[in-house]
Structures are given as C-alpha cells and as structure tokens.
C-alpha cells in the first residue's frame, strides 16, 4: 500500500517485533452496551468524545472478556479518534487485557510499600503454585497473574487485588489458602478493603 504519489511502498524493511493486538472476531457493541455508551457520551461535549474512552473500553472488556484489535477499531470509530489513540490507552492501563484472562485476575502490587513488605515473594509463591509467570493464565483458566503498581492500600501491604476486590496483608505463606478459598468460595473469600470492613 502506498499513499504516496511518487514512492512505491514495498516493505523492504523488517517489521518490528512488537506484539500486536490480537484482531479477534469482528466486533460491535451489543445494543444494550451501545446504548450505555451513548448515554455516557452525553456527559461530554460532542467534540470531546474521546473522553469516554475508558468507559468504552470497560464495556468492550465486559462483552468480550478482553480487548481485541477489532474492538479498538470499533471504539475509535465511535469516539472519532484513531485506533492508535485507543491502543495507547489500552496498553497504558493494567486493568485492560489484550489476551483472554482467567476467572480470577490476581493483581499483585509491586510498588514501594508492598515491595518492602515482600510482594516479590508473594508473586514468586503464586507463580510456583500456579505454574505460570506474571502475565500468564494457569492451565485451568481460573487464575491470571498480573503485576501492577500501587493499589492505594499501602498501609495493608502487600496487597493483591482479585478482579475488583482487595485482599490485604498477604504473605507468601497465606497464598495457598487464598487460592484454595477463591476456588471454593469465590470472591467472598477475600478480606476486602479494611476501611469498608470496619465501617460495616
């Protein structure tokens, strides 16, 4: 392909080794999600549709489980931005997945407080127990391990966020128990945020 009136485009130089977004199947929002997005869009001026990129991505992730290249294109079209703009955002945030993830996504904080309190060992322990590396999903498709930055609960370090709920004061020794109870009791096995718990 060449846009150029004078230069033929033969890609004689090698492509970069960057991992490209999985294109996935053709993507359009379900009517309900589209309606939801349209509602979100009313909150922004018509020429600032791009402001709705995060809600749009959450909706896409809800619908497909992870964000595909086609989803990025679809969102770009709706928000009148370029797919590159969308990929920019997707790749920036750890809560958007570009690959299928397990039922529970274990986000281990690795920022300062947690790191000082042994988050690294928590990660190692999780890796050993699930036989995966950070960024991967175990064979049963139940757990995905992700390393993230500060989760905002530094006083209860180390913290693991499972899907949307916190599990505080994790230690390498307690990791096995956490995994087991997650398998049996789901998210109710988590400690949750201590502030919310204390208020209750």
């Amino acid at each position: 392909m060449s846009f150029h009136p004078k230069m033929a485009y033969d890609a004689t130089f090698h492509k970069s080794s960057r991992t490209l977004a999985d294109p996935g199947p053709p993507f359009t929002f379900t009517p309900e999600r589209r309606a939801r997005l349209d509602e979100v869009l009313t909150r922004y001026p018509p020429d600032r549709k791009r402001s709705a990129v995060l809600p749009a991505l959450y909706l896409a992730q809800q619908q497909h489980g992870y964000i595909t290249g086609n989803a990025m294109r679809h969102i770009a079209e709706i928000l009148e931005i370029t797919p590159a703009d969308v990929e920019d955002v997707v790749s920036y945030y750890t809560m958007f997945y570009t690959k299928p993830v397990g039922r529970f996504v274990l986000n281990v904080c690795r920022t300062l407080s947690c790191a000082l309190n042994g988050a690294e060992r928590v990660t190692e322990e999780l890796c050993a127990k699930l036989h995966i590396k950070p960024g991967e999903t175990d064979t049963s498709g139940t757990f995905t391990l992700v390393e993230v930055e500060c989760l905002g609960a530094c006083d209860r370090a180390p913290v693991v966020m499972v899907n949307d709920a916190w599990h505080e004061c994790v230690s390498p020794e307690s990791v096995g128990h956490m995994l087991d109870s997650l398998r049996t009791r789901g998210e109710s096995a988590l400690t949750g945020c201590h502030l919310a718990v204390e208020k209750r």
Partner: protein
Amino acid sequence: MIEVVDTVTLTLDGRQITVEKGKTVLQAALEHGVSLPYYCYHPGIGIDGSCRVCIVKIEKMPKLQTSCSTVCTDGMVVDTQSPDVHAARAGVFEFLLINHPLDCPVCDKGGECPLQDFSYTFGPDNSRMEFPRRVFDGEGVKADVDFGPTLMLNRNRCIMCTRCVRFMGLVDGDAQIGVINRGNGSEIGTFNDEGVHSLMSGNLVDVCPVGAITTRDYRFKSRPWDNPSVTDTICTQCSKGCNTTAWLKAKPEWAKGSSLIRFTPRFNADVNQYWMCDIGRFNYRWVEGDDRLRAPLVRDAQGTQQRASWADLMPKLRDRLAQAGQSSPDGVKFLVSAHASNEELFLFRRLTEELLGPSGPSTITVSWRVTPKQQPPRTTFKVPAVDAPNVNGARAFGLVTGAVGDPQGPSNVGALQAAVAAGSVTALFVFDPGPDGTLGDSQWLLDARAAGQLPLLIVQGVLMTSLAKAADFVLPGASFVEKDASYTNDQGWLQATSRALATPGDAREDWQILVDLASGLGVQLGYTSAATVRGDIAARMGGAVGLVGIEGLAFASTMSARTWLQASNPSERWKWDFMYQDLPPVKGAVEPSSLPPPPGLIPLKEVK
C-alpha cells in the same frame, strides 16, 4: 501604525530583558541568545513539559521549573546557570541516556542531533548505569524497522518526547502514532504496526530530536558535514510554495561540484509554518536524473532527434518558426506550463506582443495538472490540488482568467485543443520546466502529432517527456533549483527560488533561451539578466497584484551549511552552534570564505 504590544520585564541570568507578554521563559531565553536545551517543546507543536531538560531556577518558586511551560511575568528572576540547575540538568541527561544506544556512528541523525549536542554541552561525561540497556529489536541498525512507506523507526533511540505523536495529532490531523505501554517499556508505535501513511510524514524526521525516526530517502546517504552548502529556496511542486532549503552534498573530488541531497522546510509564518509535504521533500531526483535534458536536440531529415549545439539549432528553429508564421500568422501557438516563473511568463508575453501585436498574448495557453491530495479532514496543512507554482503569476500577466488569490481550478486548454483538432495550428511551442506530467494531460497533443495535425512542435523543458520525444526541436532549460526566479503562490505571495546548482550540460536558463529566440526572430528584447527582466516587469506592471516588489526580490546565495544553521530560526538554532566545531573542510566543498558574507537574508525569526 504602531502596534501596542504588552510586554513584561524579567531578569535572565542577571540581565534585564523585555519580552512580549505570554512568552515562556524558554522562548525568552532562546530569543536572547541563552542556550537552554529542550526536547519536547517545538514551536510548531507546542508545549508538553515531559522531557524536563529545560529546567531553570526561578526565584520564589519552590523547585526548579520547566522553562518551556512557565510563562514570563514581570519581575521574575530566572537563573539558567546556577550549580543546582547544572546538576539537575545533568541528572536528566543521565536518565535520557540510560537506554539510548549511543550508536551515533551508524545513526542518520549523527552530527545534527540535538541529543548529541545537548548531551555534550549539558550532560554528564559518563554514565553510572550498570544494567543492560533496554533493547527493542536488537542492537544498532538492526533495530531500524519499517515505519510506513517513507520512514524507518528505531525505538531504542527514542527519548519519548512525544513530538511525533503530537505532530500527527495536531498538524497532520490523523493521530496514527501512539505511545504503547508505559514507563520504562514505553515505545512509539502505530496501530497494528501499519506504519505512518501521510503526505506529511517527512516532517516527523525534522521534529524527532533523535535518530528514532529517519527517512528511507536519506538513509545512509550523507552526513551533515558532507553537505557543506545549502541554498534557501522555495518548493515549486504545487501552488503553495513552501519555503525550503536545498542541501547540496559535495561530490567526490574527481567529479567536482555538488549534487542535491535533500530538501528541508524553512519557517515561514504565512505560508508553510515549519513544514513541507512529502511530494516537495522527496520528489527531487528528476532534477539530476537520467531523463534530464542536457543538450539541445533537432529532428533531422530521417526523423531522429540529433544532438545539436545552440548555434546550429537557433537558425534552423528561426527558419522553421518564421516559415510557419508567414504561412499562417494565427497558426503559431504557445502552450506554457504554470511551472513557468513570472520572468518567463513575462518574456512569452513580450515575445508574442512584439511578433503579433497587442493581441499576441492570446496565442498563449497556460496549462497545469490538478491532483486532489488525500489528507485527513482535520489537517492544518492542506496541500493544494494544483501541481504548479505560478497560476497566480499567469493571472497577474493576464494569461489566465481570474484574479490573483482566487481559488484555482483545472486549467482550460479547450480552445487550443479545438484549434489543433481543426488543423489550424502550424507551430506549437511548449514550455514545460516542471517535473514530468505537471503540464497536465498531453495525450491529445501526442495523438494530434501522430495524426500529422501539428507540423512543427518545439519543446523547451527539463525532462525527456513523451512530448519532448515527439518534438522537432528540444531546448534544454533550467529546473527550479537552477535559476533565480519568482513565483506568485496561491495566497498571492511573491516568492523566489534561488540558484543552487548549475544547469546540466548545455542546458541554459530559460530567460536566456527566450531572449535568444526572440533576437533570432528579429526582436531585440534587450535583457541581459533575469534581474533586468524583473526590472522591466516592475517598470511595466509593477503595481499589479502578485507582482509588487518583484524588482527588489532577494535571492539567497549558496552558503556554508554552518552559516545557515546558525542564522536560521533561533528556536531550533542553539543545537547547531555546537556542530562542525573542529572539523576540517570537506574536499570539493564550496569554500565558505569564497561565499558572500551571510546576508541579512534570513533574519533571526521570532519564536512563535
């Protein structure tokens, strides 16, 4: 009229300076000759405040501030030289170089790289890093990957200033580049690795302050110190007339002379800002290409075109033309490309007036090609559809209908076409000094010629086009970089191209050919240089819109690259002052001392 400009007065390194209100500290410093490094700021794409190298100390502010994003206020006291500024700056440079490969010897930017220059000036002289560098696609030029039809990308070299990202969003209008991932893993990329597909892509090389984005065209072709001379000129490939600089590379010693190596844009607030399009930037090889006309050609009795000397050609041409003119005075027509400069258009007008009387200019048809360019709707740099620089000039001389500055549509050659089809044209003189095809459709002429409807075809031009191949006489002229000539752009600005190269072989400047032709036909126009032609234009029609000031036009002369770099826009200028410091002169280069002193031609431009 006195413009009242609000100003503020501040102290900069102990000096009282007064600047326009709203200027940032960085702009003020650069305008007053204080060297400050900067990467993410670019006058054409604004402030980002992400690279942090421009930090300065401002009294009463708690921390060091980024000068690019701090607006000057009255009474501000700025210090760019204090020890803590030096130390902090050095710290930023140390960070910038953590992952930078330092492969300057194989990097196309080497020698004109702000990262090199500023690091030498402001950075620490060694690194304390012991970690392996973050590497994207291998070391050295192995990391150069495909980045679209015109560009290469080397992500190892990128310093994440996001100038390219902002350029695509703000100027090109189609944000094809994004920052992928985050933190230490950030990389520049396009969606799906499709590369940059834009008519403005070449500008990314200019905005990128390192060798991360380079052009395929200039790849490994030259080094800044091998391009010893530059000539400020304008682009003539469309009606916009972007201000550009032609870079000349010294040929090897045995070959003598220099050749065209690249074009770069030159700031002009009214016309092209800091940019130029890829057509103007990359479509220049025809100037020195194999198809270039280097000697006059005459078709002999056997029907083959033979090389001839000007002295042989002129009498034959005169005889054939005079014969055609006598047999049918209305049968001699001129088809002139809108690539003709004002001087040349004027000469055609004068010639026809002298030969055919006041109605003479009606025998001239001006023609050009129109190709709409595909550009994003949001672009701030529209490349016009008209592929010729001087439609407005032709209007100023009354050769094309419409007023200077009117919108420009396709050319109208219908009358000439009808006359040719009717067989009433006995001689056609075509003037085509632009790249192949810019004359517009010429197939009808070739068909008429093949059908014997055009007994005499004369082509004055620069390339062996299909029309030149069919001609009885071929007169080799000068391309836009080989003559001092003036053009009136689509906004009505009168602008000048300057002579950067000598015409190849026996080719001559077009005004000279036309004056000789006229005198062959018994008309003494009496011009001895292009400047005398301009003087006469001014005398006869100096007040015409689009031609005002033509007699006083300044033409840039070839100057040493170093002088150019120092005299150009100060906001991109400081980086250059550290170039070429101890380099021996390049062999075959134009000896700078033999050149006229840097004229006031490129005044220091204000930083916008």
